């Protein structure tokens, strides 16, 4: 069998920049495929991905579910006889894939390099600052008022009860960011799914699952597995990561519930009962969940931060912007969020407002850059895990043909 290999030099360059510079060391012994606890007998990785990457065959790689199934635990890197760091190379391929699928491509490109950090921070910082000026809410409240309303009048206040001024501005910022991210992710996932289906080489499937069936049979089991961290726990050399990642993931779930609750009580119920506005009481169970989540988030990201630093110091992982940017963003959200709350409780409005502003900036960054940074794994890996199930299902493997 002959194969026409058309190496893509830009891809190889991107690999090097994203921490996959050890790629060329690989001599295809396949130790990694056996070392990997997630690699299956009939579909092992990452050995195959290593040679595809060496050849610059990016089209095959971005359509390869294995690339996204990898949890980068480093078991393969630990045992690699050549120091080719397959774990890091797969991470670099994912970084490339997120950029490839990312829309708008300019924003995706911006997220690939530490050189663009001033821009990456500048965009949300300037947007929020401009809106703050436009809103006219640009005055620091008195201590007494601050204790009463907290940050809920950061962007000012008006008496129109159907939509609070502050909510309008927050929604303007965050819903736009989330909207861009959701649209980008939708586009990216559709493209990835199509490519993955094409890579199976099967002809047009006669039946496709309906959306409820898809969720029930493929997406929900994947989500359940993620929540249980079943695959993460298979890793051996880097078991510490579960201790960091699990509280972090649960804290995101917790904070999502809190956000939904707050949105509903303040912006829906609040229309009829104005007293629902303002900070939630410290004794409210939802507030308790928020605080517990905030601490879990900080503990989780702290463990991951130290773990990564330790691995890099030991030469077991490459220092990349791709990995650190997400750690910084999440740590930023956690630290500013909790600090803003503490400053509110301590009654220091001036500093509180500055920290709250930074909190808004970091939250906007997390939302807006989600599809292009390492954060994108929450959707791409989830769907790859769903695809893994789909691939083995009767929709693809027609049992009548077997």
């Amino acid at each position, binding site marked *: 069998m002959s194969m026409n290999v058309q190496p893509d030099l830009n891809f190889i360059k991107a690999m090097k920049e994203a921490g996959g510079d050890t790629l060329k060391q690989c*001599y*295809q*012994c*396949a*130790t*990694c*495929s*056996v*070392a990997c606890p997630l*690699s*299956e*007998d*009939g*579909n*092992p990785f990452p*050995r*195959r991905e290593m040679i595809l990457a060496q050849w610059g065959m990016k089209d095959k790689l971005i359509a390869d579910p294995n690339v996204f199934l990898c949890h980068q635990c480093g078991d393969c890197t630990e*045992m690699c*006889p*050549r*120091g080719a760091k397959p774990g890091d190379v797969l991470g670099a391929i994912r970084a490339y894939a997120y950029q490839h699928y990312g829309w708008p491509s300019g924003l995706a490109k911006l997220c690939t390099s530490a050189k663009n950090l001033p821009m990456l921070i500048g965009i949300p910082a300037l947007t929020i600052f401009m809106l703050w000026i436009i809103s006219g809410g640009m005055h620091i409240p008195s201590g007494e008022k601050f204790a009463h309303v907290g940050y809920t009048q950061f962007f000012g206040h008006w008496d129109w009860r159907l939509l609070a001024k502050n909510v309008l501005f927050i929604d303007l910022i965050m819903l736009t960011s989330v909207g861009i991210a959701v649209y980008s992710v939708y586009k990216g996932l559709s493209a990835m799914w199509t490519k993955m289906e094409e890579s199976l080489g099967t002809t047009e499937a006669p039946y496709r699952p309906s959306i409820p069936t898809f969720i029930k049979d493929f997406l929900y089991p994947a989500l359940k597995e993620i929540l249980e961290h079943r695959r993460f726990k298979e890793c051996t050399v880097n078991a510490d990561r579960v201790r960091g990642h699990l509280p972090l993931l649960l804290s995101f779930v917790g904070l999502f519930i809190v956000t939904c609750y707050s949105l509903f009580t303040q912006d829906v119920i609040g229309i009829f009962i104005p007293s629902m506005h303002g900070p939630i009481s410290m004794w409210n169970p939802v507030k308790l969940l928020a605080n517990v989540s905030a601490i879990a988030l900080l503990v989780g990201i702290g463990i991951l931060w130290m773990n990564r630093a330790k691995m890099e110091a030991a030469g077991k992982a490459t220092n990349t912007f791709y990995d650190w940017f997400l750690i910084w963003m999440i740590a930023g959200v956690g630290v500013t969020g909790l600090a803003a709350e503490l400053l509110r409780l301590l009654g220091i409005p001036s500093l509180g407002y500055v920290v709250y502003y930074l909190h808004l900036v970091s939250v906007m960054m997390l939302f807006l850059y989600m599809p292009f940074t390492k954060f994108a794994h929450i959707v791409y890996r989830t769907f790859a895990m769903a695809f893994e199930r789909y691939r083995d299902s009767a929709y693809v493997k027609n049992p009548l043909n077997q």
Partner: protein
Amino acid sequence: MSDTAGNGAVLVVGGGISGLTAALEAAEVGKDVFLIDKNPYFGGRVAQLNQYFPKLCPPTCGLEINFKRIKDNRRIRTYSMTTVKSVSGGPGNFQVELETAPRYINSNCTACGACSEACSSEIDDPFNFGMRKIKAAYLPHEMAFPRRYVLDKQACSDESLSAVKGACKYDAVDLDMQPEVFTLNVSAIVWSTGWNPYDPEKLENLKFSSSSAIITNMMMERLAADNGPTAGKILRPGDDKEPESFAFVQCAGSRDENHMEHCSYICCMATFKQISYIRAQYPEAKIYVFYIDLRTPGKYESFRAKFMDDENIIFIKGKVADIVAENDGGVTVVAEDTLTAKKVNQKVDLCVLATGMQPAIGEQGKAYGLTLDGNGFVVSEPEKGMISAGCAKAAVDVYSSGQSSTAAALKAIQIGR
């Protein structure tokens, strides 16, 4: 020749096939040669082989003639159980301090074997990699040169020691023997310190000690050798089962920066050679060879071709990265076949790790003033009077060792003429 004043004398450190060759080549052109070995016998790793390349001779074949030449040559003085303590001076004028460990048996020994019979203490047979027990008073192996017994005093009980002493009719047992330190003056030193099989315990994922069905290729040589623990019958250690299937795990410790970065050169050929042993005893046995690349340089290519045609030998391109011990005494080896991109879980009765060559001299070499390369091999520096030969210099076969030893001798005799 005198004991110490060696004008133009050569010291050869290590008496395996390389050291023997270098010593003889230098002596036969008229130089005084001192040949030392840390073992109680000469012949090194070749003595432990069943057959060796290029012509698959038994080791008796090549070693015996060399021993004969040494015995006949008055210019060679041999010291067994002797190691280098320190080196000073320079080319043409080295002072080398040597230490001979106590053998506890002196030159009166006639190798009658009475001491061994009388001895009640046992040790793991070092010559056979511990695959059998032998008496603590022993002849290292059948064709040992010098032909003299050794006593492992530490391993013996007091009553055993007195029985050994009492059994000897020739007053050859000397229990008070002390380490002997002496100094030699030589012009050049040939380092033919050879190699050790890489310690398989260090290959943690291959779980060497988890099953007696996992052996090294050097253990396989002993199993196949007539003078080995099974008298030449290839049986699984532990339960003596006749294996119906074999797996060869290539590059066990070689070409691996976590272990030894170099290619050990001989392991692929050793595997083909050992396949020939298996075929002679088990014509139908299934043999699985797991490899990264099969390296059979030069004329060895045709030897490989012969076995590649055997349909009961399956070659799998992929390194074994996990071995699981099974309840029936066998093991399952796990690898990815990179040509089919599927994992292989192959159950076999006996698994042979093709462990590579680790330079035997180790870090100690630096204390002698030697330059070691990145893999621990001795860099040959004739201008410093330090010349390396054989597997001390690079991982090579016997044939290439002969060449490099002759070359080393040629360099050595030119120093301090």
